[in-house]
């Protein structure tokens, strides 16, 4: 690695490559989003959109990637790739890039726990730039004027603009690295827009070899615990009452259940912290590694509002937050904030929502009566 080539090696060529993510026979939504974004970038440059998928027994998944926008799909299908593991996946990707005549111009991964594990290793191996957790991507020119490093001076066409929120989302930073390909980025799940599926789309599928050595197998996956079915109506409910560590114990969810029952279409949500503590099953988890929800009303009880929770619920129509800490981050994006103790506020909410229920029941009667 000491004899690696220099950083500055500008090359305007190359395609866009998306690294697909699949789990338990399903392409992950972030991959479809990346194909949507990657398609736009590739079209802007007049290049192709390539995609690589790794796993075991992948069946029809490569075709699906074409239906969602890929022109070329590289497939690595091997038992050793059944579960995501850093080193085997890294090896396959490194070998693929080494086998290409020119490196991709742009290389995109999801900023999931997989993408953020794998992308930095690839970037470090190829000594190239990587922007984390982007919320916007674009292609455009860039003129570098700073003379600190004269080798970088110049006007560069077709650079990847990787745009990411920073400093607790108070700033947006545009990060560029046109000097070397692939220009890499991970993108935040749920942000980019997938293309509509088009089963008539045609593309090429290439199988690529999987050659692992013993070094690549230093880690084994002993157990994967993952919620498969989404039988819960969390994503469909109009009202979600969600509980966090502030509940103090799992019994707190009984109170939240009562509150939820005041509404026609309701479900119980939770933060990851309480799911980890075993207070409530995984299916209830809202956030980056749980579900993304968009109810009409989200009531957050004793949830601090960590970024990983926020990305799963910030698009709710109305967010009411109850927290005893006035500095809790959740008050930065909730609509109605109540500073107080859950065990005093929630019973009062139940009482007053019940009163509203009766009122609307009465209202209903009076309408009938007036006819």
């Amino acid at each position, binding site marked *: 690695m000491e004899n690696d080539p220099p950083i500055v090696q500008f090359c305007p060529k190359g395609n866009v490559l998306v690294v697909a993510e699949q789990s338990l026979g399903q392409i992950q939504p972030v991959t479809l989003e990346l194909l949507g974004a990657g398609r736009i970038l590739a079209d802007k440059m007049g290049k192709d959109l390539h995609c690589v998928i790794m796993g075991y027994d992948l069946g029809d998944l490569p075709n699906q990637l074409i239906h969602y926008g890929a022109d070329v799909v590289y497939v690595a299908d091997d038992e050793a790739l059944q579960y995501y593991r850093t080193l085997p996946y*890294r090896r396959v990707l490194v070998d693929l890039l080494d086998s290409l005549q020119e490196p991709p111009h742009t290389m995109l991964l999801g900023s999931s726990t997989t993408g*953020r594990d794998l992308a930095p290793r690839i970037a470090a191996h190829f000594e190239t730039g990587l922007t984390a957790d982007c919320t916007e991507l674009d292609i455009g020119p860039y003129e570098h004027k700073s003379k600190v490093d004269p080798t970088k001076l110049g006007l560069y066409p077709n650079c990847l603009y990787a745009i990411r929120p920073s400093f607790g989302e108070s*700033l947006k930073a545009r990060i560029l690295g046109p000097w070397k390909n692939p220009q890499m980025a991970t993108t935040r799940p749920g942000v980019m827009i997938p293309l509509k599926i088009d089963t008539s789309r045609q593309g090429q599928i290439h199988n690529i070899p999987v050659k692992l050595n013993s070094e690549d197998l230093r880690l*084994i996956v002993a*157990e994967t615990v993952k919620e498969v079915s989404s039988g819960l109506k969390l994503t469909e409910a109009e009202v979600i009452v969600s509980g966090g560590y502030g509940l103090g114990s799992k019994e707190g969810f009984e109170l939240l259940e009562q509150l939820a029952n005041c509404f*026609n279409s309701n479900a119980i949500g939770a933060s990851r912290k309480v799911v980890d503590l075993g207070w409530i099953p995984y299916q209830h988890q809202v956030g980056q590694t749980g579900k993304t929800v968009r109810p009409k009303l989200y009531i957050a009880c004793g949830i601090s509002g960590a970024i990983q929770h926020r990305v799963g619920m910030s698009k709710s129509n109305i967010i009411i937050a109850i927290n005893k800490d006035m500095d809790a981050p959740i008050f930065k994006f909730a609509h109605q904030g109540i500073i107080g103790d859950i065990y005093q506020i929630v019973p009062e909410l139940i009482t007053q929502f019940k009163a509203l229920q009766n009122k609307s029941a009465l209202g209903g009667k009076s309408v009938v009566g007036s006819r």
Partner: protein
Amino acid sequence: MVKSLNIFVLVKQVPDQGSKAGLNPDGTIDRAKAKRMLNPFDRYALQAALHTKKQYGGKVTAISMGPPPAIEVLLETIEHGADRGFLLSDRRLAASDTLATAYALYKTVLYAGQFDLIFCGLQTTDGDTAQVGPQLAERLQLPQVTYCEDFSLENDKILAKRIIEGGYQKVVSSLPGLITVANSYHPLEYKSFKGAWRVQQLQRNPENLQKIIQTIDLDIIGADPDRCGLKGSPTIVAATEKVGDLGGNCHMHEGKSPYDLVQEVLACTNLQELVSN
């Protein structure tokens, strides 16, 4: 465990979020203006390192890269029970991106000597990329466990639980290895009396201090300056833009009886159609 473990932990000094971080026009941080603190995520990494020492025996080495004041975070690790530290400080490191940072830390780790386990924080509160850990692991050709919530060591193997979408994974990895510790790991315990006393003694005696916390530069560790700082960084922050508030202009209700608080909220929202009857 047969032998005594060499445990490394990487800690970064970051601007205190409470105080407004000074930003240079080019988007890099003006560290002179900002108040400083130990990256909150690194507290979990430190706890993991100290726990490993306590449970399995060994020595904890803390490593930081940053300007001279970053020695504060290394002293903090010693107050908590770390044994020694290395501060890599060099003007040529200014404006390093994650690739250049990981290169410099890689050279520092090699300089610091033998290791069995390296702990990193999940991410920082300033750069916030979560990339340095895996990039360092790549340089060192190590297996890694990222998003680690819990772990133990058995027969020279790491047994670890890591976060994945919709659940978790249990993995078994060989040593040596690199672990990035999630913020759902155990919080950092209080400073030890012994550690606090040790730091007091060190601060009175600069010569001993330099023995326990070595301040080093690129020449000492034999790092290539062209791979560090702005020069060694393939990315630059080309522009920053203020986003302003997160959109939620939160209407706050406080300091009243629960009855009045809830009345107020109901007056501000129209939830009638959602309640069941």
